[in-house]
Structures are given as C-alpha cells and as structure tokens.
C-alpha cells in the first residue's frame, strides 16, 4: 500500500473525506475537452468544407497543401503535396500540430487534463489511482518543456488568423468594406487567440519574468505587469478561445455546406 494508505500514515480507509462535489469540475472538463477532441479529429480528417466566400476555418489556416482550395491558400503558396505515401492528406493535419501542441503543453491545460483525464490527482486531497508517478521528468512528458517553441509558433498562427479575419471583411464579390456574421466570428476568435497567447505563462516569462532586476528594465517591467494581469485570466482565455475557434470552424463549415447562410450586416 502506498500514498495515503502507507503504513506510517493515519489509518483512514477513505480515499478522501471531502464532502463537497470535488468530482464536478474534472467531470465537466473531461466532457468538454473530450467533445472538442472528437469534433476536431473529425474535422481535421474531413478535408473539406473549410472555405466559403473569404471565410476560412481556423482549423485549415494557413492552408499549405496542394489539395487546398486555391482561395484558401496564402497567395497560392502550397509547399506540401496533396498526398503522402498515397494517402490523401487533409490540409488541416499539416498544421494542426502547432495550435494543438500549444494547448497540449499549456500550463493551464496541463492542470486541466492531468486532473480530468489522468486523475493525477482528480482533485486536491483526493487520492489518485496510479501507483507510480514521475511527473514531467522523462519522455513523453518531458516534452512539455517545448511549450515555448509552440508559443512562438502560436504567435505566427495568430498573425495568419488575424489576416484571415481581415480578409473576411469582403463581400461575396471580393469588395472590401463589408462585414458579415462570419467576419465577426473570425475576428472574435482571432482576438481571443491573441489574448490566450499573450496571457500565457511563457509570454509572461519572456517579456520580463526572467529578469532579476525589474528596476533596470522599466519598459519590460511595465509589459510584465500587463501580461501578469492577463495571466490571471489565462484559464478563462484558454476556454473562451477554444470555444471561439470551435465555433468559428462550425460556422464556416455550416456556411460551406450551405446549411447556414452567412449574414451580411453591410
């Protein structure tokens, strides 16, 4: 017997004596994240319905494959072939590793999925089921230290997605100065992605957290203070941006399949 049932510890047979609904939060987290993964997997392999009238799904941007709808590409730049080993590669699969990696290695999501998927621990002071634990000291979890790499990549993606949001301010005929519900959806999702990235712990560290003397770097200290304030809300930004991206994709897909019609304000 190990952990709280080790021979030296107080003899208590319950795994926890908590009387509150400690299981609720991990259960919800599990439900939401799991649904997202299912949906995202389906969409990533679908390889269609990601572009319509200047709206491009964030799951497919930037679209780098020769399989891409030409309008969805970055000025027609398609360095990746449509097939690999005779397997038709969905353009989403080429790029999804980056936003996915950013979220997988995010300090907030780590807490969320370690608790809800891996039950390590399911909640504070609730005994976990595993008999061995090495944390993030060896493969594969030592890979979490790559968060910074994904953070940089995430910033590049944010630029693309912001570009996509700007492009969406066109009407069906490609004329500028129009706004649809779709452009609003892309704008919100790209903005929330920026907030999510900028509120990230790595960002906080990079802009100023790594310094020993704030007083010698007043500008970076100011930035650090701002990012720190955002960082308090990192969890919220993580969820809101996830929901916004998912909804943006759903919206584009529905418009692309013709299920919904993109509503133009002007």
């Amino acid at each position, binding site marked *: 017997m*190990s*952990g*709280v049932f*080790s*021979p*030296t*510890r*107080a*003899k*208590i047979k*319950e795994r*926890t*004596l*908590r*009387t*509150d609904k400690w299981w609720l939060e991990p259960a919800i987290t599990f439900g939401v994240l799991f649904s997202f993964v299912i949906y995202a997997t389906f969409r990533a392999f679908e390889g269609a319905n990601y572009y319509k009238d200047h709206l491009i799904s964030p799951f497919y941007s930037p679209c780098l494959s020769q399989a891409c709808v030409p309008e969805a590409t970055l000025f027609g730049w398609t360095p990746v072939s449509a097939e690999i080993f005779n397997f038709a590669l969905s353009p989403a699969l080429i790029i999804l590793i980056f936003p996915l990696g950013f979220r997988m290695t995010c*300090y907030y999501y*780590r*807490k969320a999925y*370690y*608790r809800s998927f891996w039950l*390590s*621990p399911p909640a*504070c*002071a*609730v*005994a*976990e089921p*595993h008999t*061995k*634990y*090495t*944390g*993030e*000291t060896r493969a594969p*979890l*030592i890979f979490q*230290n*790559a*968060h*910074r*790499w994904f953070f*940089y990549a995430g910033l590049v993606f944010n630029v693309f997605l912001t570009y996509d949001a700007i492009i969406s301010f066109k009407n069906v005929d490609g004329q500028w100065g129009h706004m649809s519900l779709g452009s609003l959806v892309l704008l919100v999702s790209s903005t929330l992605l920026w907030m999510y990235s900028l509120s990230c*712990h*790595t960002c*906080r*560290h990079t802009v100023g*957290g*790594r310094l*020993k*003397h*704030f*007083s010698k770097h007043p500008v970076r*200290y100011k930035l650090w203070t701002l990012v720190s304030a955002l*960082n308090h809300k990192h969890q919220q930004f993580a969820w809101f941006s996830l929901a916004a991206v998912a909804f943006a994709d759903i919206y584009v897909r529905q418009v692309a399949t013709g299920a919904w019609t993109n509503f133009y304000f002007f």
Partner: protein
Amino acid sequence: MARKLNLRIWRGDATDGGLKDVQVDVNEGEVVLDVIHRVQATQMGDLAVRWNCKAGKCGSCSMEINGKPRLACMTQVASFDEDETITVTPLRAFPVIKDLVTDVSFNYKKAMEIPAYEHPKELAPGEARMEQVDVERSQEFRKCIECFLCQNTCHVIRDHEENKKSFAGPRFFIRIAELDMHPLDKLKNRKRTAQEEHGLGMCNITKCCTEVCPEHIKITDNAIIPMKERVVDIKYDPARMFAGLLKREKRN
C-alpha cells in the same frame, strides 16, 4: 448562544486509530481550533493537537477538515451547515504521531537541502541598495508561514511515498524561486539544481498547493511555473539551442 456541534475526530497513532464522534458546545464566531480546545479541556484531556498563535500566522494547526487541508484556526465553524458533522483528521501525507499531530520532519530535512542565500562579498552590512519592485516578488514567497499544507496536498508525495527522497515540494520551490529572484543573491546554479536535484520536473502543475495556501501565495503561477520557464531558458530554449548557448550555460 451555545449550540451543539457534531465533531468527528481522528484519534490514534501510527499503529492504529479511527474516527471518534463527540458532541461539543460551539459559540458564535468560533473557529474549529476553539472547538477542539473545548473537547480537549472537557472530554479528551490527552487529545494531541499542535497549535501556537491561533491567529493564522505561525502555521502550526494544519490538519484536514472535511477532507481539505486547512488551518484549524482559520476555519470558521459558521462556514459549515449547522447540522453538518465536521470531520477532522491529521495531515495524510506525513507519518502520524498521535491524534491530529503528524511528523513533519520531512519538510525540515528538505529545508536543509536548499542552498542558502549568498550575499555579495563586496557589500558590507548597510551598503545594500534594492528597489522595492525588485524585492516584491521574493517578498511574496517570504510570506510563507510554513504550515506545510502545500506539501501535504501535493499528490507527488501524498500519493507516492517513494517520491519523498527526490522531491522538495511546493514550499521549497517558492524558496528556490525567492532566492533566484532575490536581487542580490550570488549563487549561480539554482535553476539547474531545482530541476536536477530538487525535483521541479516532478510537478505537474495541478495547482493544489496554490488552492490550499492560507497566505494566498500564488505558488504555481508566481514561483513554480516561472522556475520551470527559467529551467527552459537554460536547458530547452529554442533560440538559445540554435545559437549553441545551452552548452555554454551548462558549464556555469
């Protein structure tokens, strides 16, 4: 205006023990420690409990109240429903000594393993100049009252006795962070030893330490994650990796 409270107290020692039910008077505005003291004075003269200041400043009366690691002096009876039974047990991550008292010597051993502050030799007493903004981060960590609730709740050792030898725990990660962010500390290799000797990598940032901290120190966000990032700086940073700087770092 006394009313009766149902209290369930763990009594026993390392060999055996269990929860005992008692009924005790409770007055308005009292905390759980007040009630335990009343039990001690009227019903169980030999009930063992650690406490000192009864003001949330010394961190002695750490225990688990309804399964949550808390300070008994900071837990108001009024925060529970009137008909609720309050269960108090000793900390479950450390060996029990008797009743509500556990052997927390693990923490003092770990304290001795963290390399001490190193003052610049050229600065005589009184010559140090530090800006308030530069000391504030470390000051947050120095608020720690060493109640060891964070150590107790951390699943790395709570659920895995065998990790105790290689893991310093949240309390000592904030100590390392405090020193690494101290404007004058001269010791160079705190980041590397944090990772390689004190088990920083074992932490999977599930934030329970922050949740239980009675001083509201943002242990995870302000100490552990910044330390993990500092470790990335010297071991895994992409830019430095390409520039070949990490090898040089290693020699420091």
